[in-house]
């Protein structure tokens, strides 16, 4: 099974502070290979122009929100295999259900702990390993 250090992450959030926090936590988990995008549109361009293994995305963003990004990823044959972990302040049940139905690999509500992020990333990687 892969470890976070083997993977290239794309962190999508319109707040630079949150991108830095997620990046810092991933680094503590051993992942030094992470890039950032400030919204879904920028992220989608990056995903189409380079190879990534894991997407961590906010939902409420300008231009293209997290749901739109998730939908675009799952519709694209070359991207749909990518796990997308939603990390968001949206705590409405309908958003969580929608994310699950549209193919998100996990859902974390802000504020969150390092342990939560680590647990979700590991869980998703285990699932991917099991289905590979």
């Amino acid at each position, binding site marked *: 099974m892969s470890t976070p250090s083997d993977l290239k992450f794309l962190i999508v*959030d319109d*707040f630079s*502070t*949150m991108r*830095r*926090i997620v990046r*810092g*936590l991933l680094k*503590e988990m051993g992942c030094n290979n992470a890039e950032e995008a400030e919204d879904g549109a920028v992220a989608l361009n990056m995903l189409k122009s380079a190879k990534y293994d894991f997407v961590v995305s906010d939902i*409420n963003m300008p231009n293209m929100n997290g749901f739109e990004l998730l939908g675009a990823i799952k519709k694209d044959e070359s991207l749909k295999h990518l796990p997308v972990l939603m990390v968001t*302040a*949206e*705590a*409405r*049940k*309908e958003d*969580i*259900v929608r994310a*699950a*139905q549209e193919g998100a690999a*996990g*859902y*974390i*509500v*802000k*504020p*969150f*702990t*390092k342990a*939560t992020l680590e647990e979700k990333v590991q869980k998703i990687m285990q699932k991917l390993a099991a289905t590979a």
Partner: protein
Amino acid sequence: MKMDDLSDLAPQMAAGASPEVFHQLGMITRQLHDTLTQLGVMPKLQIAADGLPDARSRLNYIASKTSDAANKVLNSVDSAKVDHAHISSETRRIAEAIVKDPVKAVASGAVMNFVGDVEAATARIDQHLTDIMLAQDFHDLTGQVVAKVVSLATELEDSLVKLLVQAAPPEQAQKVEAAVLNGPVVNPEGRTDVVKDQAEVDDLLASLGF
């Protein structure tokens, strides 16, 4: 309707009502308009009937989040400083011991104890630094809330202008669009449409087969 016209209109509309009320409403509207103009915020839609209580709740949420973050950072800095001071004093102590009698310093285990101390202290400091980093998440959460309160203030301005112009009770205020209420749930108590914490997210996802 320009703001400059409002003062002239107010007395005409005040028939049957206290001119003072309209005068004060006009002043409030102008003050709000000027403030929002200075902030570069353009007038937009109508205010929701429940907008003001919601704004109070959101502002309280900001105060709470920033206060929590400040305390968390200060506590972590205090703890890290204690560990840092410990490393500094132990370094001086072990240096003196090595200079005085290097063989004894090593043979007595003082050097290895020092190494162990440093390792433990740096691990604790690392945890404090992580805590400080995590405490910055308030910026993301409060930033979203601030944007919503600014939006609400803009809507309030529009409503006050309409009230002054029409000289009548405002029509049934439109409900805030669902999208406007997105973002951090500042007060989940009594609500069934939102989750309160990550455990509830996990339970909900588990019920969906995740």
